[in-house]
């Protein structure tokens, strides 16, 4: 396994750093928030990102994608994490693309992957139904009626749920909540009758929506993969989501750390830079260790996903768990070490704290992934 970036990945990283720092710096998120932007992201910037090939990083070239793989997408997400960039990258490029590319029917792929890679069509994965990640608890039911599927139930905190053109719904078609068996994946157009989407305002000012399905009817071609086997199709994609989100979280944590380090060198109290106080030094050094471990775990997970190795799931849970713990540690220390200024909305550092907690909860927190890692390891 390679734990160093190759030339292509380094170029992607450099391009992403350049793009995000100039086109979508932290101020861009602040502006979206303060203007209460209805979309919650910059459509023009998203088109530029698509032009750079980033919407289709996980889309095969045959379908118009750039096919840089997870390791490539990880570099983009990490750099986006550094500026807290809001974009459809996660929901559309990281999650929907590989799900459709791997499990979609030929018709679905022909219809959707091209527009996806072109940045013209947005997607959302409607999975969780409560405030904590729990795929097995899926209760939203899809019932076969006259050869069509009829959906009833709710989905909560759906990323990009209110801007997506197509919703990939994880629905229960057999069994009962508590089991990952009996789930199916259904493509539902955002404008389907009976689908009510309510944008939800989270602390990180990103884009999520609660969705309510009241007798929403879709025809059989809406089914992705075979019925009742949705979780098997979904799980590797969730692993990718975890690794990619961990990359984003790593970028945010690294940036928060770097900014804090700068502040420690700059801020003077008692006639010296506060970074000369040993207690702060030691805490900074400990954070560095955690950041380095997280970086290794994230990179290993991305590489394993691209190689479709057996340990990809294990590494994805490792990456997400480490990213969660590191994000929590670093974001808390960053605010504390910035002192009063860190408490002000005017300073950016608090935005890193806010984003960290939402990302921690998305697709399973550290505890969720520790339990999963233990299960995969056989203890």
């Amino acid at each position, binding site marked *: 396994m390679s734990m160093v970036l190759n030339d292509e990945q380094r170029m992607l990283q450099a391009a992403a750093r350049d793009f995000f720092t100039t086109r979508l710096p932290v101020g861009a998120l602040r502006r979206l928030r303060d203007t209460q932007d209805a979309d919650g992201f910059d459509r023009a910037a998203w088109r530029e990102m698509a032009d750079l090939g980033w919407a289709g990083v996980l889309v095969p070239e045959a379908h118009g994608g750039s096919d840089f793989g997870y390791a490539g997408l990880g570099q983009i997400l990490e750099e986006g994490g550094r500026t807290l960039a809001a974009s459809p990258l996660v929901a559309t490029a990281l999650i929907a693309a590989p799900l459709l590319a791997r499990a979609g029917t030929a018709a679905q792929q022909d219809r959707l992957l091209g527009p996806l890679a072109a940045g013209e069509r947005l997607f959302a994965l409607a999975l969780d139904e*409560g*405030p*904590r*990640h729990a795929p097995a608890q899926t209760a939203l039911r899809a019932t076969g009626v006259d050869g069509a599927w009829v959906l009833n139930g709710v989905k*909560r*905190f759906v990323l990009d749920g209110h801007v997506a053109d197509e919703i990939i719904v994880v629905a229960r078609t057999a069994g009962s909540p508590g089991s990952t068996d009996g789930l199916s994946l259904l493509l539902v157009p955002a404008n389907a009758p009976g689908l009510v989407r*309510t*944008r*939800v*305002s*989270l*602390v*990180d*000012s990103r884009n*999520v929506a*609660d969705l309510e399905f009241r007798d929403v009817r879709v025809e059989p071609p809406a089914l992705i993969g075979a019925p009742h086997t949705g979780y098997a199709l979904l799980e590797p994609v969730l692993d990718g989501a975890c690794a990619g989100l961990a990359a984003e979280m790593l970028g945010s944590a690294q940036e928060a750390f770097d900014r804090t380090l700068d502040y420690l060198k700059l801020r*003077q*109290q*008692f*006639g010296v830079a*506060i970074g000369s*106080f040993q*207690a*702060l030094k030691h805490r900074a050094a400990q954070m560095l260790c955690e950041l380095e471990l997280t970086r290794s775990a994230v990179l290993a997970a991305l590489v394993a996903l691209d190689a479709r190795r057996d340990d990809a799931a294990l590494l994805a849970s490792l990456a997400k768990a480490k990213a969660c713990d590191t994000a*929590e540690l670093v974001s*808390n220390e960053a*605010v*504390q070490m910035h*002192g*009063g*200024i*860190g*408490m*002000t*909305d*005017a300073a950016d550092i*608090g935005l890193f*704290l*806010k984003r960290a*907690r*939402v990302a921690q*909860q998305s697709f399973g*927190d550290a*505890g969720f992934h520790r*339990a999963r890692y233990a299960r995969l390891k056989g203890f």
Partner: protein
Amino acid sequence: MTTEDEFRADTRAWLEAQCPLSMRTPMPEDERVWGGRHASFRHPDSRVWFERMVGRGWTVPTWPREYGGGGLSAAEAIVLKEEMQRLGCRTPLFGFGISMLGPVLLKYGSPAQKAEHLPKIARGEIRWCQGYSEPGAGSDLASLQTKCEDRGDHWLVNGQKVWTSYAHLADWIFCLVRTDTGAKHGGISFLLFDMASAGVEARPIKLISGASAFCETFFTNVRVPKDQLVGRLNDGWTIAKELLQHERGMISEIGRAIGATVPSVDVVAQRYLGDVDGRIVDPVLRDAVARHVMDDHAFQLTLRRAAEESEAGAASGGLSSMFKYYGTEQNKRKFELILKCAGHAALGWEGAGFDESELLACRTWLRSKGNSIEGGTSEIQLNVIAKRVLGLPD
């Protein structure tokens, strides 16, 4: 009947007769009476109650009668407090004038200053704010730079304060200023002036948790009459230190009070994680919740022990720093744990999808981060404990 018993009986009778029933209920924060030029009384009875208490001097019961106080002895003041607690009477008037400036003026003020300011504080006519921290002077407060020059017939003040609570609502400010740039601690003076003076501007600070009572306050060529300096020139640090000690305890209390407004951690955990036979379903979080609740329990026992030791005359010094440190860090841990239990439900900023307690949990989580910064950072408290309690060398 002893004099104290008599006083207690009289006090009780007066309170029962004079305190409106509505003023014997727990007070929502927005019904607090702060007084001042623009005093507002959100609850109509609060004005009645305020005026009756002002009439007896019981807004500041131990201050001398000549300054609008009640002239009570310390023992009598305790009786009054006990009787008010018994009936559940609300505090009739809040303010930094009562809790902070008043005691300083009584100790350090000139006769003229006392006569001028104390009665107005007692009667709630003037609302005060405190000008201490500056952008460059936080933990190292004594490095403050707000310049106060002697211009013969007046002081000329230029500079900036920050974290001035309620400065945008206050009438006057008590302020630390630099009157000698050659000495650090020995170049600071304690100055009073009207916030309506030309050149004063207060801008509320938005926090990561939303709107706040804190302000940035700017002074541009503010002219202050010469007689408004309290105590000796360049001796303001003595006063500042006394007030800081006071503030430390207060913030620790505020932290706990804030914490008390949301449900306790075990209740949150049961709500979001579910329970079987009364046990929180997630055993790992249940263990974390137990750890937290137990630390709270042990901390409360320690507060009680310290109080009892203090009464028994056996108190160990420097404990206020320990309480400030532990209480605020514990409060931060509490909200992190609530977030872990409640997931996205405790991450709502506003609007649809959340109930009030969820939105409050999120804002209070963010606000709690400031507890270990304001009133002396956790790092400063640990320094103080190491030095004063443990005797470790500098």
